[in-house]
C-alpha cells in the first residue's frame, strides 16, 4: 500500500544556508512518525514546506502516491494536511468557535456568520476525539493546554488526514504531555496519520511508531523505539557523542544572597500571579524553579529584577531590602539577569555588539568618564569578551541582529558574567538553542556556581532544571508547592507537582509505589 505521504528529495536554500538537503520521507496511514533533531536542524522548515508556507527549490510531494503541488496553506488544507505550530496561531480576543472556523466559516443564507452551527460542530469533534472544550470561551481565557486542543480541533474541522505537530510538548506539564500522547494515539486509531517534530528523546521513545533523525538539513538515521538506543540517537542528532548528563560536583552553599518573603504580585486584572511565596538562594548553589509557563515565574523574575512592583512581601538581596528598588539599583548590588525573551529584553538588536556588551555598565568607569563615553575602552572590552566567550562574529562593531540565537545568548551571558556578580537570575537560558550552545551555557552556569555565585534558574525544561539544580522548587498557580533537594526527587514527582497535584516528597529516598505504577 502506498504511503499516505511521501517527500522526495526536498531541498530548500536560504541565503547562506542549506536548510533542507535532499530529504526523503515516507509516512504510512495510521502511524506516528517522529522527526527528531536539535534546534536549527531543518525540521520546521521541512514541515513549513509541506504546509505550503515555503516552496522547495527541488523535490516533490506525493499524497497517496500522486504528485501534489502545495504552494500555499490553502493547497495544504485541500490536500488534507493540517499543522499545529509551536507558537499557537490563535487569536486571543476571538472565541474558540471563531478561531476554529476562521477561513472555513459557516454562514447563514443571508450572508451572516452562523456561529451556533459552527459551535455545534466544534462540540461534535471535541466529543468524538476526546478534546473537551467549551466552544464559546475566549482564547485568552483558556490555559495553554486547552489552547492546544483548539489547534487540533481546527485541523479536524477541516477534515485533516495528515496532522503535523511542531514541538507540541514545549508548553505542557509532563501530565499534559501524557494526555497529548493519548489524544494522538486516539487520532491514529481513527485513521489519522501524524508527523511530530521534537528535540526531546524521551518523547520519541514513548510515542512514536517510527523515528527519523535530521541533522544540518539531512536525514542521518531512521529507527523505531524498540530498536533504538537513546545515546545513539542523541549522537546522531548532534553529530558527536553527547554527554546526556551534566558533570557537576556537590554544591557548597554559603551565605544567603537572595531572600524572598511572602511575596505577592497581583496583576491589573486582579489576578494573583504570585501568591505569598518564600524561598532563598545561597551563594554557591543553584535553586531551580520548575513549572509550566504561565504559573507566575515570569512575574516573579520581573519583580526580583525591579521591572515590576510587588503588592506584598519582601525581597532582600545580600541583606539589602530591594522590594522597591529599580533595575539599576539591583544590578549595582551585583545581580545579573539572563532574561526569558532575549531579543526583547536582553539585547538592542540594531545596536552593535560592543554596545550591547556594556548595556548596563556604560555609565560607569572605565566605559565613560562623567557623561563622556570612552569608545576605545568599550571596543577593547568587546574584543576581550568575544574571545573569552567564543562568540562567532565577524567583528565587534557589527549589529547584534546578525548573530545566531546561540551567539546572541552568549553576548548576554558574556555581558552579565563580565561583572563581579553574587546572584544570577537565569530565565529559560537555553530556549531555542543548539546543543553546542546549550552545553556551553550549562558549563558556565556550573562554573559560576562553583565560584561562589548564587543562581536562581527558572526553566520550563524539566531536564535542564533537574540536571543543573541543587535544590528544586515547583511553581504552580503562583504558589511554591515544595522545595526539595534535586537528587532525591524523581521526574514523575516533579511532573505531578507541576500539574498541581501536591504530593509529599519523602525525605528518605523511598518513592511512593503508586506513582511508579502509573508511569510504567
Amino acid at each position, binding site marked *: 500500500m502506498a504511503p499516505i505521504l511521501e517527500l522526495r528529495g526536498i531541498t530548500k536554500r536560504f541565503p547562506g544556508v542549506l536548510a533542507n538537503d535532499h530529504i526523503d520521507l515516507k509516512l504510512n496511514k495510521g502511524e506516528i512518525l517522529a522527526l527528531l533533531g536539535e534546534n536549527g536542524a531543518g525540521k520546521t522548515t521541512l514541515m513549513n514546506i509541506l504546509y505550503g508556507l515555503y516552496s522547495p527549490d527541488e523535490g516533490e510531494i506525493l499524497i497517496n502516491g500522486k504528485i501534489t503541488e502545495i504552494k500555499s496553506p490553502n493547497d495544504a488544507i485541500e490536500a488534507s494536511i493540517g499543522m499545529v505550530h509551536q507558537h499557537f496561531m490563535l487569536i486571543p480576543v476571538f472565541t474558540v468557535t471563531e478561531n476554529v472556523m476562521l477561513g472555513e466559516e459557516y454562514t447563514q443564507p443571508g450572508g451572516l456568520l452562523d456561529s451556533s452551527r459552527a459551535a455545534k460542530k466544534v462540540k461534535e469533534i471535541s466529543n468524538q476525539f476526546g478534546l473537551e472544550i467549551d466552544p464559546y470561551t475566549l482564547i485568552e481565557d483558556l490555559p495553554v493546554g486547552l489552547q492546544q486542543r483548539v489547534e487540533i480541533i481546527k485541523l479536524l474541522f477541516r477534515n485533516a488526514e495528515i496532522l503535523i505537530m511542531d514541538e507540541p510538548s514545549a508548553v505542557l506539564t509532563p501530565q499534559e504531555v501524557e494526555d497529548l500522547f493519548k489524544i494522538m494515539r486516539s487520532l491514529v486509531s481513527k485513521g489519522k496519520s501524524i508527523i511530530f517534530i521534537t528535540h526531546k528523546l524521551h518523547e520519541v521513545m514513548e510515542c512514536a511508531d517510527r523515528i527519523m533523525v535530521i541533522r544540518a538539513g539531512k536525514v542521518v538515521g531512521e529507527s523505531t523505539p524498540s530498536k533504538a538506543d537513546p545515546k545513539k540517537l542523541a549522537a546522531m542528532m548532534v553529530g558527536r557523542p553527547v554527554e546526556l548528563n551534566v558533570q557537576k560536583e556537590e554544591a557548597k552553599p554559603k551565605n544567603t544572597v537572595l531572600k524572598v518573603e511572602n511575596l505577592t504580585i497581583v496583576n491589573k486584572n486582579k489576578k494573583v500571579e504570585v501568591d505569598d511565596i518564600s524561598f532563598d538562594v545561597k551563594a554557591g548553589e543553584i535553586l531551580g524553579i520548575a513549572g509550566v509557563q504561565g504559573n507566575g515565574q515570569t512575574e516573579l523574575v520581573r519583580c526580583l529584577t525591579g521591572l515590576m512592583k510587588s503588592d506584598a512581601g519582601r525581597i532582600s538581596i545580600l541583606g539589602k531590602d530591594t522590594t522597591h528598588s*529599580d533595575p*539599576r539599583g539591583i544590578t549595582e548590588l551585583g545581580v545579573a539577569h539572563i532574561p526569558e525573551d532575549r531579543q*526583547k529584553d536582553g539585547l538592542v538588536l540594531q545596536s552593535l555588539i560592543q554596545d550591547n556588551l556594556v548595556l548596563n555598565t556604560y555609565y560607569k568607569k572605565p566605559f*565613560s568618564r562623567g*557623561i563622556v*563615553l570612552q569608545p576605545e575602552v568599550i571596543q577593547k572590552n568587546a574584543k576581550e569578551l568575544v574571545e573569552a566567550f567564543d562568540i562567532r562574529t565577524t567583528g565587534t562593531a557589527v549589529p547584534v541582529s546578525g548573530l545566531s540565537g546561540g551567539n546572541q545568548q552568549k553576548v548576554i551571558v558574556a555581558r552579565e558574567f563580565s561583572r563581579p556578580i553574587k546572584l544570577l537570575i537565569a530565565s529559560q537560558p537555553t530556549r531555542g538553542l543548539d546543543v553546542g550552545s546549550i552545553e556551553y551555557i550549562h558549563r558556565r552556569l556550573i562554573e559560576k556556581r562553583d565560584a561562589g555565585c548564587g543562581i536562581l534558574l527558572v526553566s520550563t525544561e524539566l531536564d535542564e532544571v533537574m540536571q543543573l539544580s541543587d535544590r528544586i522548587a515547583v511553581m504552580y498557580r503562583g504558589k511554591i508547592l515544595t522545595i526539595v533537594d534535586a537528587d532525591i526527587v524523581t521526574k514523575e514527582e516533579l511532573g505531578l507537582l507541576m500539574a498541581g497535584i501536591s504530593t509529599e516528597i519523602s525525605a528518605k529516598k523511598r518513592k511512593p509505589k503508586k506513582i511508579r505504577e502509573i508511569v510504567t
Partner: protein
Amino acid sequence: MAKKNESEKKNFLNIFIEEISKSSLTIILLAIFTGLILGGILAASTTPAIYKAFGRSFGEGMYESLKLIWETYSSLFEGSFGNLSKMIAALFSGNAKTMESAFKPFLESLVVTTPYIFTGVAIALGFQAGVFNIGAEGQLYMGAIMAAWAGWTFKGLPPILHVPLALSVGTLFGALWGYIPGWLKAKTGAHEVINTIMMNYIAFNFSEYLIRGPFEDPTTPFKTPLIEQSAHLLRFFEGTTLRLHIGFVLAIVVSVLVWYILYKTTWGFELRSVGLNPHASRYAGMSSSMITILAMTASGALSGMAGAVEMLGVNFRQTQALSTGYGFDAIAVALLANNHPVLCIITAMLFGFLRHGSRVMQINTGIPIDIISILQAFIIFFIAAPAIIRSIYRLKEPKPALELEKTA
C-alpha cells in the same frame, strides 16, 4: 558566502558601478532627481499654455514643456543660489554693491535654512528616541511669539543680556509645548502623533488670540509691537539688504552639540537605546518614560528656539498666524538625513534653498511655491521606499553582510 564561479575579470569600472548602485547616497541623489522630474511633469501638466502647444503639434508641445521645466528649475536655482557668472564677476570687481546683489540669493537662502536646521535636528532627536514629534510647527510658533514678547517688554537692557533672555523665553515655551505631549505619552500612553498635532492647532489659535488681544500693538491692528533693538540678533552685513544673522551660526553650533551629546555621551547612549528597544533599555536600568519626556521636551525646545531665532533675527514682530509648513518640512529634513544631527545641516540647506528659490520661481513662471511641498513628498517617498528607486533604475540590492540565522 557562495562566490559565483565566473572569472574574476571584473574590471575597475564594473566594481565602481556596482558599489555606486548599492550605496545609499546614490539612492538619495536619484530620489531627488526623480522627484524633480515628477515635479516638472506636474508643472507642465497644469499649465494650460502647454496643452495649447500640444494642440498645435507634438513637437511644439514637448518644446514648450521642456522650456517651462527648464525655466522653472533654472529660476529655482537662481533664486536659491544666484547666477554663478554674476557671482564670479562680482568677486573680481570688488564692488560692494555688485557683490551684494550677486550673493544675495545664496545668503538669503541661508537665512531661510536656519529654522530648518533647528527643527530638523529637533525632529531627528525625537526620532532617535522613538518619538514622533509632529508638533514642531506649534512649538516654533510659541517660541516665536514669546520671544517677541520678551523682545518688546523688557526695555533698556543691553543686547548681551536681552538676546539670550529673549531666546531663552522662546526656547522655554517651545520646550513646554513639547513637554506636554511627552508627559502624556509617558504617563498615560497617549500617542504623541495625535497630541502633537492637537498642540499645533492649539498653538495657532492661541497665537491668534494673543495677536488680536493682549499682545496687539496699540498702533497697528493684528500685529505685535516691534521688538527692541537690543533684542535683535547680530546681522553680519548690517547696512545692506542681506539678512544673514548670527542665528545661522547658532544653528550649526547647536546641531554639532546635539550630535556630540547623541553619540559621545552616556545621555545619548541611553536615548538611542530607548528609541531602538525600550524594553531592553528598561531591563538595563534606563528609564524609558523619563527619556521619552526629555526627548519630547528637548525636541520642543529646539523648535521653539527656531521660532525665537526667526523672530529675533528676521521678523521682529509677529503678524497674523500663517501656517508655514515648517513642521512637515522638518520631518523631511530629518528623514533625509537619516536622523543624524550634522547631516541635518545639509538636508536643511536643500529644503531651505528650495523654499527660498521657489519664491523667485513663482514670480518668474507662475508655478506656485506649493510645488516644493510636492517635491518634498516625492523625495521622502523615494527615500522611504528605496526599493522603488532600485526597480526604476535597475540598481542592484546590497547583499546582506552577515549570515542569516538558520531556520529549524
